[in-house]
């Protein structure tokens, strides 16, 4: 268990900069998820903390100690990767024992048997212990590789998209297991993913990375409801947030003058005519008779308890999540409105949330 701090980390690979001036704090016992697209620098961050890469600039602290000169072995972190993480030729048991056999750890044979047994029990892989790793399914392999991290009792668990190679059902199951595991162990987890559902469902805190910059850190709630800019707003939520370009006029949001105007209930700032991007999540768009805006139904996706409508109002396409009981047909004309309290205002040119920018 440990506290991790990255201070002003920049990492360059030749001419490309993978991370720029990254500052990051991960609290003791926290489940921290780094969310970002491919190439955003998630894996690089992980490898820097593990000691597999050296930062071009900046410092890394584990429990307040600068570990810049430490090798991976000394940092006492565990790494779980998406694939290739199990040693071939070894059985599951040998894989689990491998980190304990390292000279720097000197674990007694009895202790080793204990720890392997305990990890196997937690992950329900006891029946696989004597199997060769080539003969495991994807989910079993990932369990074993998490087990190899657990037996060590490391200070930090680093996980690099450990679930993304698995099929949807298994991914869901392991997600819950991982979260439970983290709570049982009370360990610090840094989990890297491009999957917003993983981030939202597991994280105590999420850090959103965009092309090497950390845009925002916060609880899933903060990230979802109070994104710092349009990038963060778009990176969580399914279906994604609706972003309308428009202007502020008389305390109203004007997206298409005359045909697409909605109230803001005092959220407006006194910048008359300022270009604004209005963000509203599909669940905050309502479809009801007599609402302010007329729209045609472009598409209906039935998801069981709810329907996702794709609507077209004044040539602007957006989405609304409505109860499945609502009867709508494609091409039907409906009336819709938004919950003015939930509308997020972003600056029209910078994309920064006005709440954050002040």
């Amino acid at each position: 268990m440990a506290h991790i701090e990255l201070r002003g980390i920049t990492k360059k690979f030749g001419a490309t900069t993978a991370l720029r001036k990254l500052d990051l704090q991960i609290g003791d016992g926290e489940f921290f998820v780094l969310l970002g697209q491919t190439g955003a620098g998630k894996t690089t961050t992980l490898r820097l903390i593990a000691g597999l890469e050296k930062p071009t600039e900046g410092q890394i602290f584990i429990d307040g100690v600068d570990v810049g000169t430490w090798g991976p072995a000394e940092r006492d972190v565990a790494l779980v990767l998406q694939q290739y993480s199990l040693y071939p030729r070894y059985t599951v048991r040998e894989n689990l024992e491998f980190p304990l056999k390292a000279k720097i750890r000197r674990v007694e044979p009895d202790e080793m048997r204990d720890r392997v047994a305990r990890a196997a029990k937690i992950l329900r892989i006891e029946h696989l212990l004597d199997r060769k790793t080539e003969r495991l399914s994807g989910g079993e392999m990932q369990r074993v590789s998490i087990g190899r991290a657990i037996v060590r009792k490391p200070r930090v668990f680093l996980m690099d998209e450990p679930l993304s190679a698995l099929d949807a059902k298994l991914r869901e199951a392991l997600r819950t297991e991982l979260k439970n595991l983290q709570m049982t162990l009370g360990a610090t987890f840094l989990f890297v993913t491009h999957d917003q559902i993983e981030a939202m469902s597991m994280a105590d805190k999420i850090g959103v990375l965009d092309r090497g910059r950390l845009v925002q850190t916060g609880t899933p709630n903060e990230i979802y409801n109070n994104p710092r800019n349009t990038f963060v707003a778009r990176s969580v939520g399914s279906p994604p947030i609706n972003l309308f370009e428009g202007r502020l006029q008389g305390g109203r949001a004007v997206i298409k003058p005359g045909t697409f105007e909605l109230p803001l209930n005092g959220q407006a700032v006194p910048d008359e005519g300022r270009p604004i991007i209005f963000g509203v999540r599909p669940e905050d768009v309502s479809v009801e008779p007599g609402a302010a805006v007329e729209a045609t139904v472009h598409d209906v996706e039935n998801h069981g308890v709810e329907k996702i409508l794709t609507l077209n109002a004044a040539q602007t396409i957006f989405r609304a999540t409505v109860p499945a009981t609502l009867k709508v047909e494609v091409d039907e004309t409906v009336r819709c409105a938004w919950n003015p309290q939930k509308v997020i205002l972003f600056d029209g040119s910078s994309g920064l949330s006005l709440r954050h920018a002040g």
Partner: protein
Amino acid sequence: MAAVQTSRQRLANRLAIAAVIVVTLIFLAPIYWIGSTAFKPRALATTVPPTVLFQPEITPFIKLFTKRVQLTRPVEEEVYEAAPWWERRIYDGGERVLRVGDSVQLSGYPDRFKNSLIVAVTSTLLAVSMGTLTAYGFSRFRVPGEQDWLFFILSTRMLPPVVVAIPMFLMYRAVGMTDTHIGLIILYTAFNLSFSVWLMKGFIDEIPKEYEEAALVDGYTRMQAFFKIVLPEATTGIAATAVFCFITAWNEYAFALMLTNRDAQTAPPFIPAQVGSGLTDWTAIAAGTFLFLLPVAIFTFLLRNHLLRGMSFGAIRK
């Protein structure tokens, strides 16, 4: 896909198999020739057309291992009777085995064979181990000018070795390394190294570096990770590289002929010089060649499983 073969496919298969058999026979013919000559009576060795059916005998091997001289007069009856069976074979051929006191004088062959083993085995071990480490370095670390270095290493193979024969000879003579094991070992190691580096780099590139990184994070040093994770994964590549290096070193003729003459001479330059007394004794030469083929055959046979994977390297992925 249906497993039913059309008659056309069957015919194509048969033709392919027939072609393989023909090519194999062509390749095996010289080996059969050497093997059969090694067991022929001397008189049948050079008959035209070659004798295919004959009573195999061991005499060529006895000749190979002994020093002999031509008999000037027929051997006495009681000497012949008292001689062991193998010595009588020599008397039968009109020669006698040289003795100093009571002990039989051995020919140079066993020593040359031993030299060949020492030189080939040592240089193979060196070339493969140095090549593996170098390849690992190139594969896993950022080496400034990596492509240039690799090209430079390969370029040592770009001119025929015989071009450097004379400078080599002069250099070896100047430093006193002619006719030494170490001289040939260095030469063969240098010659095989470029090959070994390139081949091993290909194999090591194929091993995901995630394995080692996992080991590093798990508390092992780079060296331990190399020995515990990389090396076992690279066995196939190492075996294939070792066989190629061994064959090159084992069969090398020109430099061995030029740089050695007695103490460190290997078998290849020795065998043809093994003319015996009087006319060239092809049966003894064939016997020497036959024995000389065995280590490569055994070595290759032992590593055959790895070799198959090694040869098809690149075509088949794990």
